[in-house]
């Protein structure tokens, strides 16, 4: 059996005197698809930012691919973990191809231009994500769905074994959401990339993931398979609100709908 690719061991994170994550312990196997759910302010984004070392801390208690997170240089870490952040509304002034090539940064030398392998990787991810047809356009001219695919393509260009995504489907219509989810499933299945996805869609998390991680006020409140999550008491524990369960007509699994306005 392969050793875990991500391990948290009694990991806590304090920022400006506030405990944002408290005593998280879990391990994720290579090639897993993990969804991270929880109410707003639960610490989901903080958890991913700690994994990417965007948040500055001692990072003791986190191991990536068997090595302490603190032992990685930022460039080494980028070769193992890639990240698609939440859209902040400000788009860099680059074309799609230029932006995706920037994903090759961890492999580039300051004095030499991108080589054949770098160009081949960019061409491959353009193809995989269906972004090749607009590779010459500027990011500002793309639709929301196209943009998200470009951001995922740029993260894939890092050739990292772990892909972290912070609500990549936010602001997208159902059709584009399902396009993004299909792409993520394919990346996980075909390339063996370990995916950690933050989402507010409990049904999506239950349908797409192998395991689900639920946070509440910085603490781990659920870590297990989707079936275990789709229980009334478990979801009540996480969100403090009752949900109604209905059978999905085509796949036969439990899905939830909200009972009444919050």
């Amino acid at each position, binding site marked *: 059996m392969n050793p875990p690719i991500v391990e948290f061991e009694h990991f806590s994170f304090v920022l400006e005197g506030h405990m944002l994550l408290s005593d998280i312990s879990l391990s994720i196997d290579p090639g897993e698809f993990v969804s991270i759910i929880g109410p707003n302010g639960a610490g989901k984004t903080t958890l991913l930012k700690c994994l990417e070392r965007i948040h500055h801390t001692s990072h003791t208690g986190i191991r990536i691919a068997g090595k302490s997170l603190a032992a990685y240089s930022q460039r080494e870490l*980028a070769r193992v*973990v890639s990240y698609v952040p939440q859209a902040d509304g*400000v788009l860099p002034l680059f074309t799609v191809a230029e932006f995706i090539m920037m994903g090759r940064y961890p492999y*580039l030398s300051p004095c030499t231009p991108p080589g054949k392998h770098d160009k081949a990787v960019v061409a491959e991810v353009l193809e995989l994500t269906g972004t090749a047809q607009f590779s010459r356009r500027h990011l500002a001219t793309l639709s929301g769905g196209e943009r998200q695919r470009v951001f995922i393509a740029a993260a894939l260009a890092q050739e990292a074994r772990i892909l*972290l995504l912070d609500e990549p489907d936010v602001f997208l219509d159902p059709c584009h959401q399902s396009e993004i989810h299909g792409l993520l499933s394919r990346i996980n299945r075909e390339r063996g990339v370990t995916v950690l996805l933050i989402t507010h869609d409990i049904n999506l998390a239950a349908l797409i993931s192998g395991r689900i991680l639920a946070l509440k006020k910085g603490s781990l409140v659920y870590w297990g398979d989707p079936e275990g999550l789709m229980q009334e008491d478990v979801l009540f524990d996480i969100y403090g609100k009752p949900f109604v369960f209905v059978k999905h007509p085509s796949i036969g699994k439990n899905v939830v709908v909200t009972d009444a306005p919050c």
Partner: protein
Amino acid sequence: MLNSRYKKRFLLGLTILAIVVAVGAPFTGMQFISLRSVLDPVSAGTDYDIFWRIRVPRVCISFLAGAGLAISGMAYQAMFRNLLATPYTLGVASGASLGAACYVHLGFMFSLLGIPGISVFAFCGAVLAVAFVYGITMLRGKRLASSTLLLAGVAISFFFSSLILFIQYLSTFAHSFQIVRWLMGAISVVGFEPVRQLTPFVLCGSLVILYLRHELNLLMAGEDLSTSRGVNVNRTRQFTFFATSLMVGGVVAVCGPIGFMGMMAPHICRLIIGADHRYLAPATLLFGGVFLTVCDTIARTIIAPAEMPVGIITALLGGPFFIWLLVGRSSDKWGMA
């Protein structure tokens, strides 16, 4: 999209233009100097001295100052993800101006190792501003956060500007005029000593920025994204901050705060060649040098024998040119939609 072949051709064209301008500008002025005069000191008389002791050093300084200001502006715009950033955003020009104003007001007249006293004071003022801005930012946290850096820079800039006004208020009419004239920026040098002093600042600063071109690309995409791509954001900011601040401090000490260049030159290049710093950085460097050299040649020719402050020409020429570029092409081609 502009392909890389077009960008390389543009860079080659700009390099040739830079050589033509740098070689041609010293011959042009109130009086055209012939090639024979500059090669033969005996028969040429004063033309030989005007060419080698005044015009050539002046063209060198113009080119260095233009290149340094332009590439610094480009670096700040990337670092702060703000296209309105200029080399003076962090208070370097105000610091230098305060130093110069103190020198004039106190009535000093000296030079240090061949460097005019006003330049020494201006450089010390620039270093003081850099130290204040860096110190304030680090007091807020161990990292060089861009928002704190920007606010500290603006605060120091305003504070120093007020002190300059205060000094002007206390000064005599002659001193006050001298300060105002210095604040307009001017390139008037004699001999190669100022060139020798400025070259290491611009050369080292530009090399640092050219080395960091991949990092600057990523900083434009945001701090989280650049960190996740493997950039050490804090170290990149520190290198950029010190390299550009010292470069701008050196330029302002010699030429005064020449306006417009640092903000507009990178924009003009971005509109022509795109936002990728692998091409944008060398293009901005060359364009800045060429543009200021041309402006200075016009400034010393247009109302000869008098001279116009070069800052007026840079804004008068660059402003309409920039507007023409801005409205003349569709914004999505430039990635400025």
